[in-house]
């Protein structure tokens, strides 16, 4: 029985142990090497990842509050892999940083929260892990300690996040009030049509999720927070954290509120439309590359919501597949940006003029990542979007697909604008050749392999699809 816990929760356990270990190291030595901290963390993350692919248990613990199976394990593996990539990319930034251990402790705490969240089958558990994954993030956002805007970002994140949690809690308590239970399974069977309070609860919970994945109209916090946070945190927020919440969102929508499918379909369609359009409109005029990626990630969420609207196994699989692709492509882009920002402090799109002249490899990385984000074959982004739209089209809303296609064209404009800056434009003050340390180099190679590989390797989608079933 006890070993059962260990096996079922091996992701969570390894992460928790890592946190403890870091705490001990931090407390135990006055002068600890950043390199050591980073290596220990990366090593353990890698171990967890490997273990996650080898040991594939299935079962429930904690009185069925915690459930794990192949699909949940896949999601956790995706998140761990993403975190590992971010950790590798951040090494340039963290090398001379005085609070590396704290950074990792907070980062891993959120990861721990996300892992629990994915496995939760009970609203209480879900809420706890959600908070565990959010509150440390606010602290992380503040990690550019000398920058005022970093503190501002943290404050904005914590305030608006608290509010959205409030909404969600209100929704959960309505749900408890009408059904008398908080377990996902029991709520799902207790829910009835035409009970307004439950509908209200659903809207509130939806708003909470909408906030986390920054769907319009709950997205407004994103711009300020993304811009103020350190690059590593921004990429974590916009990729890993969103991915985790989306994974849970799939469960909640498809399992708990399955009865409302015909209602939330319209809601999601409308929200996805707004998200795509407004995300695009914002991204169009950004001059700061970090802010630009943040807004473009909002419009990507719009596409994900289209996939979700399908409401079938296919759409769950397409969303997960897209998130995999999205993690690789977005982190690929963020990796280059983090490197450039870490070494030169430049983060405007204009600064990338003539970037290709001195930094051929970085330019290609960024270029491939942007092509993937824009959804151009043969890189994976194209297939990701293709599957999303395909599953969205299953309900027959072709006009929605048409609008999505138009939005893809708009997004093409701003992604290619960056590419143009990198490859075509000339500048007298183009960025010098940057040295690339070993860790970010590994991270980038992983990203490029991921972007190209997951596009060319047709088996991946099938693999996910089989797991969803």
């Amino acid at each position, binding site marked *: 029985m006890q070993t059962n816990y260990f096996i079922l929760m091996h992701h969570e356990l390894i992460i928790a142990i890592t946190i403890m270990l870091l705490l001990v190291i931090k407390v135990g030595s006055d002068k600890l090497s950043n390199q050591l901290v980073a290596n220990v963390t990366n090593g353990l993350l890698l171990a967890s990842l490997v273990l996650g692919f080898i040991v594939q248990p299935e079962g429930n613990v904690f009185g069925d509050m915690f459930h794990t199976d192949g699909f949940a394990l896949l999601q956790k593996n995706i998140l761990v892999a993403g975190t590992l990539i971010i950790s590798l990319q951040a090494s340039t930034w963290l090398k001379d940083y005085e609070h590396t251990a704290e950074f990792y402790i907070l980062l891993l705490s959120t990861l721990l929260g996300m892992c629990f969240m994915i496995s939760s089958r009970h609203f209480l558990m879900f809420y706890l892990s959600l908070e565990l994954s959010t509150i440390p993030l606010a602290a992380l956002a503040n990690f550019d300690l000398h920058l005022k805007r970093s503190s501002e970002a943290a*404050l*904005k994140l914590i*305030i*608006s996040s608290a*509010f*959205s949690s409030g*909404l969600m809690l209100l929704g959960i308590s309505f749900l408890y009030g009408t059904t008398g239970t908080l377990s996902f399974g029991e709520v799902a069977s207790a829910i009835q049509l*035409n009970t*307004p309070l439950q*509908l*209200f609860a659903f*809207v*509130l919970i*939806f*708003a909470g999720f909408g*906030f986390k994945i920054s769907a319009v*109209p*709950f997205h*407004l*916090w994103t*711009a*300020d927070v993304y811009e103020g946070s350190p690059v590593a945190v921004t990429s974590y927020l916009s990729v890993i954290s969103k991915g985790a919440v989306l994974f849970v969102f799939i469960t909640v929508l498809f399992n708990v509120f399955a009865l409302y499918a015909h*209602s939330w379909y319209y*809601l999601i369609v409308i929200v996805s439309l707004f998200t795509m359009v*407004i995300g695009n*409109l*914002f991204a*169009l*005029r950004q001059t700061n590359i970090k802010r630009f990626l943040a807004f473009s990630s909002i419009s990507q969420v719009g596409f994900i919501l289209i996939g979700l609207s399908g409401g079938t196994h296919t759409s769950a699989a397409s969303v997960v597949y897209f998130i995999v692709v999205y993690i690789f492509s977005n982190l690929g882009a963020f990796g280059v940006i983090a490197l450039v920002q870490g070494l030169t402090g430049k983060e405007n799109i204009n600064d990338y003029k003539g970037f290709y002249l001195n930094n051929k490899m970085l330019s290609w990385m960024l270029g491939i990542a942007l092509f993937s984000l824009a959804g151009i074959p043969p890189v994976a982004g194209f297939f990701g979007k293709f599957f999303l739209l395909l599953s969205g089209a299953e309900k027959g809303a072709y006009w929605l697909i048409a609008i999505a296609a138009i939005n893809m064209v*708009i997004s093409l404009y701003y992604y290619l604008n960056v590419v143009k800056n990198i490859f075509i434009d000339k500048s007298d003050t183009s960025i010098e050749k940057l040295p690339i340390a070993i860790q970010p180099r590994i991270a980038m190679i992983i990203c490029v392999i991921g972007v190209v590989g997951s596009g060319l390797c047709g088996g991946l989608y099938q693999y996910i699809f089989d797991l969803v079933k």
Partner: protein
Amino acid sequence: MKTLLAIIVLLPFLGFLLNGLFRKHGTYKSVARLACTTILSSFIASAIVFGMLSQGTTAETVKYFDFINTDSIKIPFAFQIDHLSAMFLLIITGIGFLIHLYSSAYMKDEEPQHYARYFAYLNLFIFSMLLLVLGANYIIMFIGWEGVGLCSYLLIGFWFKNDNFNYAAKKAFIMNRIGDLGFLLAIFWLIARLGNANYADVFANVHNLSQTDITAITLLLFVGAMGKSAQIPLYTWLPDAMAGPTPVSALIHAATMVTAGIYMIARSNVLYSAAEFTQHIVVIVGLTTALFSATIAIKQNDIKKVLAYSTVSQLGYMFLGLGVGAYTGAVFHVMTHAFFKALLFLGAGSVIHAMHHEQDIRKMGGLKKYLPITHITFLLGCIAISGIPPFSGFFSKDEILAAAYEKNPVYWGLGVAGAAMTAFYMFRLYATTFLGKFRGTQDQEHHLHESPAAMTIPLIVLAVLSVIGGFVGVPEVLGGKHLLGEYLSTVIIPEPHHALAHNTEYMLMGISVAVATIAILFAVSHYSKKPQLEDATGLGKVLENKWYVDELYNTFIVNPLNALGGFFKNIVEKSGIDGFVNGIGRFVNYLSRQIRLVQSGQVGGYILMMVVSVVIILFIWIHDGEIYKFLVTKLF
């Protein structure tokens, strides 16, 4: 058989890949060797296949893989080897090899890189043509068909630094594309009616097609053939295609490209025999083309142009044959024509080579003594094309003319008139080039030389073939046996036995030979003595300017199209579409500017926005009826 066919087709492709990809690394020797070896091997394999078929191996269809595989349409990638395709294989690879060999010497002036490029194209050309001939359905044929068009474009524009040549290449490509559209429509039509485009299935199901369908399909196929085989009104590209290197002209005119149209119709003979109306059209177009281009050829002064128009005219004869149902005769003429036209072009190439790229026959003359081998072989080619027995051209042309007479004596009369003109312009060309006195500069005369062996050997081989090639199809009346007809009888159902009396046939032959002989004598006596060709006047001027057809096309098609294009470009696109598109862009930008105002930086504002949104979402659901009912019943 499966491997053998794959070898035949893939070897030239391999040559293309190697020469094309490593064109910067090859030497003259390695490039030429590779290109020639692949084609020679292909030829040997083709000969084996040909032999196997004549030894009684039955025709078969070999399938390699599914090319298109959907629920409703299944197109296999398959080759069909039968007597017709085997014969074309021999022509293509055989003549193709001789031209490769000849080119290896002719193109020596090029840089190594371009030399390799040239041979890569040449190999691709052969590959496409083989694909075209071997395909077991119209789709595979179309792939080869397009490949041939592409290669002709590449080779005509081989010297791409000259804009005129590029123009000629484009012209060839566009003219061909017009024809291709017809072909493509025919394929669509077939697939729509029968569900596939395999020859075997199509020909077996002809009775399931309505008469309209058959007529439409055959007409559309014929449009395709018109483009590829240069018939009125799509013939103008062929004379301009002389821009390419001379061996390419030989390849296009003899072994590949222009014969594709003939092959396609001969292959579809079952369809055509069922479409009487189309046959009339084919006869009319063929005969008109034959006469029309023959008149043009009379007044041309460029050695290659004369030959080009002569090809157009000869193709007209072949279509005449196809139209009157003499498919075997047409294919026979393709073969003999391949021999003597390749010979004539390569001979012309040899002359041009000796004259340092001078092509104007007015500046030649008396080349007989400088280029003995070229002279003799060229003369044999001229006799063959003029239809003097027992040279090859006589037999094939006679077969077509006899079949035409059977159909309608007027066809025959016009055909003989064309034959007379053919004899006349060919010997005008021969006499001005080889007889009389040299009219070029001292310098040119000094440098005149016979071409190297790599060029003369193909000439000799082709000359021999031109002389004896006709004996495979000696008509019965002359006591011979139509070997070719027998060989092809599995593919082409033999025409009903000649109803013509032997005497009539003798008479027809006699008249055509006599007319040709008179034309030859007249041409030789008239042009061999002339010191200089006078400038043409009156009708001659019209002929020299090719009936002003190019100008006609320019005025009535090209210029209006250009004007229309200009209208679309300046009015519709610039102010209409561009304005609309840019307008959208500006509008999006404007929206983007406005929407940024929401992003105020105030957290309070953000939270307010969230609350308002939740309320709005609820309101929408209220109108959905559910909460609305609740509010009405419970609260009020």
